[in-house]
């Protein structure tokens, strides 16, 4: 560790950055409160007050990342990876998927994708991967500067694409790549699959320790798992509150506020954040406030969001009284909370990380969607056919068919991409959504 880097970290992040972000949060909260005063007739409720705190936490995380080189060891990790061991070793975690989603939301993803395409990466590849590879190769920082990794940590429970993508990164950065390969659950998980994941996590420890230059402290690991469990339970509770009529929060609130549960899971501040968020959601329920003012129709959203059109989609639907009350994507980070066991951190991790929705069968996903349609009292289902995400999208045609015909709930496939706006046609999507709304209205 070089002294200047430590100093910059302490000053830039510790002293100046954190204070600046705190002030920014206060400003945002004031702004949100003012909107609540003013906007009595808007179709959508003003943002949650807690979202200002979410931004502060996420910005702090990215600010730490910015100054991390030379101060902390950096690990780039996939969104479904068993990161607790890395957190316990005090790695600074970077989630390229989250960074890509941010780029998508800020409409900067296409520029980075183009950089990757110029380097020869096909447009048919996942837009998260192209955004990330384009950022790494070009050295540009459209949203924020990401530090180079000391370690790459990839878990295949979300897709195989991350395996190919992280191999590219490993070749480019010339750093160790740890793969935790989670067998796909065509059926219920079997002992040899659980053993395999457990062995891989155990084998990852000495590699991570070598890079970190320290030994894994098990008490800290248990603490982190306990915190993760708590945060996940709170997140699940927050999402489940949307079962209420009217739903106090929408799936858009979920997409916006999911950052901490994905990127900062395991930190005590994340637990406190979701406690605050839950309390605010309960206040809305008590006051009869819905995310959509005149909620008439409730919808389940399947698959990733369309990051660059969240506002547009929310507005278009809200003007017709349609609230997207549930998302199986945000739910994924809450529903596994019961499996987490701080007393058996590695054994339970093997189970937890085998079971995210993306690692479960297409039949299981249909069962989940049916359950959510029921629990959240949904009048329709929008299945985002995300061309970047095969594990999520393949199977949707059959799932839609069952939902529409067996369950009897109007469902339709919306062709788009989660980050690459070139694969999205606003006219087409808008038309189809309006027709879908009319269909739901007719069935009421």
């Amino acid at each position, binding site marked *: 560790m070089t002294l200047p880097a430590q100093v910059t970290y302490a000053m830039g992040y510790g002293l100046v950055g954190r204070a600046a972000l705190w002030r920014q949060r206060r400003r945002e909260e004031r702004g949100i409160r003012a909107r609540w005063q003013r906007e009595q007739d808007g179709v959508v409720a003003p943002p949650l007050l807690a979202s200002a705190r979410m931004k502060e936490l996420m910005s702090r995380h990215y600010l730490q990342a910015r100054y991390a080189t030379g101060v902390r060891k950096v690990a780039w990790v996939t969104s479904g990876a068993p990161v607790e061991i890395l957190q316990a070793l005090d790695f600074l975690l970077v989630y390229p998927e989250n960074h890509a989603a941010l780029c998508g939301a800020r409409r900067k993803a296409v520029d980075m994708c183009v950089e990757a*395409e110029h*380097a*020869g990466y096909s447009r048919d590849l996942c837009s998260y991967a192209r955004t990330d590879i384009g950022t790494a190769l070009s050295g540009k920082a459209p949203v924020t500067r990401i530090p180079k990794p000391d370690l790459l940590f990839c878990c295949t429970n979300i897709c195989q694409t991350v395996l190919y993508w992280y191999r590219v990164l490993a070749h480019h950065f010339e750093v160790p790549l740890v793969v935790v390969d989670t067998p796909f659950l065509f059926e219920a998980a079997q002992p040899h699959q659980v053993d395999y994941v457990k062995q891989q996590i155990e084998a990852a420890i000495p590699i991570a320790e070598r890079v970190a230059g320290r030994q894994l402290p098990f008490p800290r690991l248990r603490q982190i798992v306990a915190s993760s469990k708590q945060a996940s339970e709170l997140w699940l509770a927050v999402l489940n509150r949307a079962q209420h009529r009217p739903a106090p929060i929408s799936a858009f609130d979920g997409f916006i506020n999911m950052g901490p549960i994905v990127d900062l899971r395991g930190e005590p501040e994340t637990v406190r954040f979701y406690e605050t968020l839950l309390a605010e959601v309960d206040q809305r329920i008590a006051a009869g406030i819905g995310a959509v003012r005149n909620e008439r129709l409730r919808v389940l959203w399947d698959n990733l969001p369309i990051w660059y059109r969240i506002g547009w989609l929310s507005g278009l639907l809200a003007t017709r009284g349609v609230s997207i009350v549930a998302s199986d994507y945000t739910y994924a980070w809450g529903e596994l909370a019961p499996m987490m066991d701080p007393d058996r951190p590695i054994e339970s991790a093997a189970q937890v990380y085998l079971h995210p929705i993306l690692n479960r069968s297409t039949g299981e996903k249909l069962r989940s969607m049916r359950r959510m349609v029921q629990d959240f009292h949904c009048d329709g289902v929008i299945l985002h056919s995300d061309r970047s995400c095969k594990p999520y999208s393949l199977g949707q045609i059959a799932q839609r068919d069952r939902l529409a015909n067996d369950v009897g709930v109007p469902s339709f496939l919306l062709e788009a991409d989660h980050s690459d706006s070139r694969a999205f*046609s606003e*006219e087409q999507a808008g038309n189809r959504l309006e027709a879908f709304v009319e269909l739901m209205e007719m069935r009421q």
Partner: protein
Amino acid sequence: MSGPHVAAIGVDAGSTTCKVVAVTAEGGVAGWRLERGLPRVEEQTALLLDDLLRDHPVATGRVPIVATGYGRRLVRRAERAVTEITCHARGVFHATGHGGTLLDVGGQDSKVIQIGPDGRVVDFAMNDKCAAGTGRFLEHTAARLDVPLEELGPRSCAARREQAISSTCTVFAESEIISLLAHGVPVDGILRGLHRSLVSRLVAMVRTLGVRPPVTLSGGVAQNSAVRAMLTEELGVEVRVPAHPQLMGALGAALLALGPPGNGTA
């Protein structure tokens, strides 16, 4: 009727236009023909060849002919068929005297060719699946806007504002343009935006291969002053256009027919 004798002929049977070029033994252009491509490739090329040879007699006996382009295998009188990549490289190298990066934008396809210091192809990339990166894109939308082809470039250059076209597909772009016109956006601004879309796609293709100056532009679209200006602007290097940009393929084929070694064929 008299003049330098024809030693070889190149035929470029493209899908949009059909071209023949006759060269002397020294490689100078003795004569050429160009006309709109017709479906009956064999017939058309035969007529063009006969017409050319009537005006430009051959030196001795049978003249060697090499065919290139989409319909090259249908030119029965050709002794050999060679791809337009190899032929364009050869033609441009001869016409300009140097290698570098060649961007050829035709009616139905566009290609980037890295030409080595000896006129050989070093690398290439093609866009032949999507009209949005070809002359067809401009032609089609110009027709819809009722603007003559030769006015496209000048009017785009002169436009005061540029209207961005977001659609990546020719068909969707058309709907977008109709909508823009309905909202009163001036035609010239739309034209400029269309040119920008085309040029962006071309630049992406060039960047994928890597820019190695000097950069040459050939093909029918090379005559469009706006495309040339925008390419220069976006690539950051001067973009040169040879004297007869549409004839580069046929010229290259003719030079290959002449047959000296090191011309890219076995």
